[in-house]
Structures are given as structure tokens and as C-alpha cells.
């Protein structure tokens, strides 16, 4: 993900992210759901296990109560415990106990008859005192410490057994260690299971978000391709939610193109409209060599022509700045220009050869590439004796290089920079009119390229154009 979009710094992290917020939302909601489910399950397990234990205690309490009798002896009435069949209650510290007792009047219990399993211990009364064990009250359950460090669940009830003078308290108790152990095990297992489920859920969400948002990233890549000149439109095979965005983008690109085209046409029409009258005025003025009015007209016509050229170039540059996704193969342009220039300079027998790989593509408009190389090659044709050679090749990542060499007189090193810097004409002394390399320099800069001058292998001038290359 890092390779897409902006560098991965704090600023990027601080901005809202679709991926992060989707993952966060899913994670928080999932976590709440899982914790709630886990707590509920554990509570339910514990509760039902305890219920089972208490039901047994209750049953035993009923047996104990039902079997207990009161005998009248000369010494007074005595409580007689039943002969219970529960073997476990016979083994010492077996974990199953019962006890018959009576309040000792000091908040404690006085044992009347313990189960044999209690051996020398007894069942402790409830922590909040025996007062709450009233005859007729519902069975009271509580936890208590037992012998052998056992934890006991106790069921207790009080009853009046006439003629016994005091209320009799029946207690049954079972060791609840197993129950607690099982509950803890269950809670642990539930925690592990839910943690696994939680991670799987988050993993799933991350995957879902990544996969779900993939078309968005694809769109981003395609828009980047358009900007880099790899494509001139974005695709249309997107999910329904993104299709409108893609078509809007394409419509915008089309509109852009249309504006550029319209501007170009407009500019061309303007040129045509102005240049013909200028021609007429100029020719008319030339025919009257000694007329002061003709001189003024000739001078002004020249100024007008320069102004027209200047503004045409500016308008074209402005139109160009909006152009996106244009690609132009270099080889056909070199071929066309070579043929054209050989015709123009056919009289002098200028011979041009060119070389370029077929898959070399300029990132920009064909008209501009023609203008760039055309002006440089025309300049070379004007100055050469017989030969001009144009070679285009890749020049580092994202750039290509067009070198145009001629076998003319060349240009002294100290003049080369001045020619480019001040936009001076190289062709002042050659026949024909033209603006030489200043246009080329201006245009190349508009494309983020550059022009440099050197000496060719034939001793003539070497012009090197560095221009953006479109990826194949």
C-alpha cells in the first residue's frame, strides 16, 4: 500500500483513511460482540452448574429433614438423625457433608449430629449469622470453607420439630472445587476460542476491505497512467459505484482535449485571417520603394507579424499545458520531417538520415514534437553542406534524447549559450525566415525538457533535445 499515494509519514497517518476507519469500525464492533458473547456464555455455564449442585443439595436436605425425628427421653427431647444411605457422607472429608444443629444463642451453631464424613470438623454458619435461618424461610445457599481447605456450597434451612424446644437447623454441603475448576476451564477455553474468532474476523475484514477497495486503487493507478502519458483514458470496467466516477473522469479528459483542440483551431484561424492581409500590405508596400507611407506600412506589417507569431506561440503553449495523456511515436515524425526537409532543401541536395527505435514514444502532442524537431532539423539543413543526421534514443528514466547533427561550420562555444539564452536567431544569414532555436527552447522547457548545443562528429553543430518519454 505504501507505494501508492503519498509517502507514509505522520501527516498521512493523521488524515482520515477509508481502510483504517473501516477496519477500526469492524474491529471495535467485533470486539464488543465477542466480549459480550464470552461473558454471557461463561456466566450461563457457571450458573447452570451451580444450579445442578444446589438441586442435589436441596434433595439431600429434604431427605435429611424428612428422616429426622425427635424422641422424648427422660432427660428431655432429643433429635435423632436418620440412617442415610449416601456412602459418600460416611467417608471422612469426602466432600459430601450434612449436619443437624441448633443455634448456640451466640450467633453460632451447636452441632447436634454431623455426618461421619465431617469427622472432627463442622459446617460453618452463614457469614451474616444464623439469625437469617428462620423456620419457614426458603432454603438459604451460601459458600463456606470446609475441612481440608475445601470450598463448600451449603444449603441450610431451619425447622421447628416439636417437642424439641429450639429450632433445628439442617445443613447439607458439597465441595464445589470441581465446579469452580470446570467454570475456570470453560472461561479459559471460551477466551481462547473467542480470541481466535476475533483475529479471524479482523483478518477477514482487512482482506475484505483491501479486496473491496481494489477497484479504487486500480482507478488511482489508471489516472496516474493518464498523467504519465501511458494511457489517454481510464477504463470503464468498474463496479457500479465507481463507473460514474470513471465516466466522469473520461468526460473530463475528453472535454480537456476538446478545449485544447478548439483553442488550436481558433489560433490557426486567427493566424490565417491575419497573415493574408499582412502579406497583401507587405507586397503592396514593397512595390513603392520611395514612398514614406509604404515604408511605415512595411515596418508596421513586420511588427504585426512578430506580434501575431508571439501570441500564437503563447496561446499554443497555454493550450498545451492542459493536454494530458498524449503520446507520439518518434520514428514516424523523424521520417516525415526528413522527407519534408529534403524536399524543401532539395535544390541544395541535402541528405538526411535518421535513426530511432520503433517503440520510442514522446509524452506529448505530435504537433509539438514536429515543431521541436522540425525547427532544429530545418536549422541544420540551412547550415549544413550536404548532410544532416537525426538520432532519437532513450535518455535515462522518463526521458528521451534527439540529437541533430550537421556538417556545416558549427558554432563557436562562446556563442552557443547566447543563442539559447537570448533567443537569438542562428539563421540570420541563411535564406528564408524563421525563429531558430528560441522557439525550440521555449517549447522544450514547457515540456520539462532542455536544449543543449555541441559539436557534431562532422565539425558542424550538434543540437541535443531532451524530452519526456512516455512509458511503453
Amino acid at each position: 500500500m505504501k507505494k501508492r499515494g503519498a509517502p507514509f509519514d505522520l501527516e498521512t497517518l493523521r488524515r482520515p483513511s477509508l481502510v483504517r476507519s473501516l477496519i477500526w469500525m469492524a474491529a471495535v464492533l467485533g470486539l464488543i460482540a465477542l466480549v459480550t458473547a464470552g461473558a454471557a456464555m461463561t456466566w450461563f455455564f457457571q450458573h447452570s452448574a451451580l444450579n445442578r449442585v444446589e438441586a442435589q443439595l436441596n434433595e439431600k436436605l429434604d431427605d435429611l429433614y424428612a428422616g429426622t425425628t425427635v424422641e422424648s427421653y427422660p432427660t428431655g427431647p432429643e433429635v435423632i438423625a436418620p440412617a442415610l444411605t449416601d456412602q459418600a457422607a460416611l467417608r471422612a472429608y469426602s466432600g459430601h457433608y450434612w449436619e443437624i444443629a441448633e443455634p448456640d444463642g451466640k450467633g453460632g451453631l451447636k452441632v447436634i449430629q454431623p455426618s461421619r464424613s465431617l469427622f472432627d470438623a463442622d459446617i460453618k454458619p452463614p457469614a451474616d449469622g444464623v439469625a437469617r435461618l428462620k423456620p419457614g424461610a426458603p432454603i438459604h445457599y451460601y459458600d463456606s470453607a470446609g475441612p481440608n481447605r475445601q470450598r463448600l456450597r451449603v444449603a441450610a434451612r431451619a425447622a421447628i420439630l416439636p417437642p424439641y424446644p429450639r429450632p433445628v437447623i439442617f445443613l447439607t454441603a458439597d465441595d464445589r472445587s470441581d465446579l469452580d475448576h470446570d467454570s475456570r476451564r470453560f472461561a479459559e477455553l471460551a477466551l481462547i476460542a473467542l480470541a481466535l474468532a476475533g483475529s479471524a474476523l479482523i483478518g477477514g475484514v482487512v482482506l475484505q476491505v483491501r479486496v473491496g477497495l481494489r477497484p479504487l486503487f486500480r482507478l488511482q493507478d489508471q489516472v496516474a497512467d493518464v498523467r504519465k502519458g501511458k494511457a489517454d483514458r481510464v477504463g470503464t470496467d468498474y463496479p457500479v459505484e465507481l463507473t460514474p466516477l470513471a465516466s466522469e473522469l473520461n468526460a473530463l479528459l475528453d472535454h480537456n482535449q476538446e478545449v485544447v483542440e478548439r483553442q488550436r483551431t481558433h489560433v490557426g484561424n486567427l493566424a490565417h485571417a491575419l497573415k493574408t492581409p499582412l502579406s497583401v500590405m507587405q507586397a503592396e508596400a514593397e512595390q513603392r520603394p520611395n514612398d514614406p507611407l509604404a515604408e511605415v506600412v512595411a515596418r508596421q506589417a513586420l511588427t504585426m507579424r512578430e506580434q501575431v507569431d508571439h501570441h500564437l506561440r503563447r496561446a499554443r503553449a497555454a493550450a498545451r499545458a492542459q493536454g494530458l495523456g498524449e503520446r507520439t511515436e518518434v520514428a514516424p515524425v523523424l521520417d516525415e520531417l526528413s522527407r519534408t526537409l529534403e524536399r524543401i532543401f532539395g535544390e541544395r541536395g541535402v541528405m538526411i538520415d535518421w535513426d530511432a527505435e520503433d517503440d520510442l514514444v514522446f509524452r506529448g502532442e505530435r504537433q509539438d514534437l514536429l515543431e521541436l524537431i522540425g525547427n532544429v532539423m530545418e536549422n541544420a539543413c540551412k547550415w549544413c553542406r550536404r548532410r544532416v543526421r537525426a538520432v532519437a534514443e532513450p535518455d535515462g528514466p522518463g526521458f528521451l534524447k534527439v540529437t541533430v547533427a550537421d556538417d556545416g561550420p558549427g558554432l563557436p562555444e562562446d556563442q552557443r549559450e547566447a543563442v539559447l539564452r537570448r533567443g537569438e536567431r542562428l539563421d540570420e544569414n541563411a535564406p528564408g525566415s524563421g525563429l531558430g532555436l528560441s522557439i525550440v527552447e521555449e517549447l522544450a522547457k514547457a515540456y520539462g525538457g532542455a536544449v543543449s548545443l555541441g559539436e557534431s562528429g562532422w565539425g558542424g553543430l550538434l543540437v541535443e533535445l531532451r524530452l519526456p518519454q512516455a512509458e511503453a
Partner: protein
Amino acid sequence: MRILVVEDDPDLSRQLKQALSDAGYAVDHAPDGEEGQYLGENEPYDAIVLDLGLPKIDGVSVLEQWRRGGLATPVLILTARGAWSEKVAGFDAGADDYLTKPFHTEELLARLRALLRRAAGHAAPSLSCGGLRLDPRAARASVNGEPLRLTSLEYRLLHYLMMHQGRVIGRSELVEHLYDQDFDRDSNTIEVFIGRLRKKIGNDRIETVRGLGYRLAPLAGESAEG
């Protein structure tokens, strides 16, 4: 010498007619593309001055139709549109020279003189081979009637191959005839030019005879046409 001027601006037309008449030419004028095309096809002119922005039919279309119809008269395009893309389109349509408005009358006259001289200079008969035709007078070639767009080195190569069609020509011989004496000769470039020429005239027209050289095959092309 008879010259046709196709130009819609009345003032410029008047000036051109005047200047050309003064220079001793007989001048006809057509104010739109339709009339210009008709005159060009039906009158024997020595040269034509053609504006590109014309009413009815634009100049490039007129020129293309003349060339397709086999008209070899030299044509000088006179236009306000001076961008290289427009020049290239004009030459590809078959122009011989191109002058951008505004222009000096002397320059137009000089260019016309050069065109007329060039057209008169070559009197060699045209060559043909299968569907290929080459007209040395106009320095033009075509395949099955479609004009070929060749650079001068490609043209020279084709010219030499057509003059010796059917014969195997060694690379060194081609180099010898392709370049002038004062040129550094790199025989490797012959392969490059053969490759480009094949692209333009059809792959099977030029045979490679291993170890010997190249041969223009007349029959392969003809049988391919049926």
C-alpha cells in the same frame, strides 16, 4: 511558362497575378478549390501556386486528388499555416515547396524558378516493377497508384534497385551508389534502409540473398496482386 494561382483573397490574387505577369509568366487564377482542381487537371501548367485555406475544397485535398490522378506538375503551397505539422501534411499530399505567409514576392519568384528548373532538369523515363512506379522527373514513387513517402536515401535505394531489378546487388555496390564520394560509408546502415523500404513498399518485394546482397523481385509482387 504557364502558371496557375489558386488563391481566394482578391487583393493577394491581384498582387500575385501582377508579380508573376511582370516576371514573364502566363497566369491563370482560380478563386476556390473546385475551380482550381478542374483547371489543374485540364490545362497544361508548368507550375501551380496553391493556397491551403480555400472555399469549397481545401488545398490539401485538391493536391491529393491531382497527385492520385497522376499530375506531376510542381506545386508550391502558399499558406498562413506555418506549423511543421501543416508543412508535413502539405508535402505528404505531394507539394514540392512551401511558402509561409506573409512572404516577400522576390522569394516566391525565386522558389518558382527553382521548381521549374528542377522539373525541367530530369528527363529520365519513369521506371516500373510490378505495382511499383518511380518517376525520376518528379522524384516520386508509388505502389499500386498510392504515392510512396520516401526519404532521399530510401528513394535512391529504390531507384537503384528498380534500375537493376531482378539482379542481385551486393551491399558494397549499394553503398557505393547510395552515398556521394565525400560521405563516410557505414555499410550497416544499408540493412536499416532496406528494412524501412520493405515497410513502405511491402515485405516480399526485396529479397535477401544470403551472402550476396539484395534483389528486387518483380514477380513476387505481381503474383501477390493476382
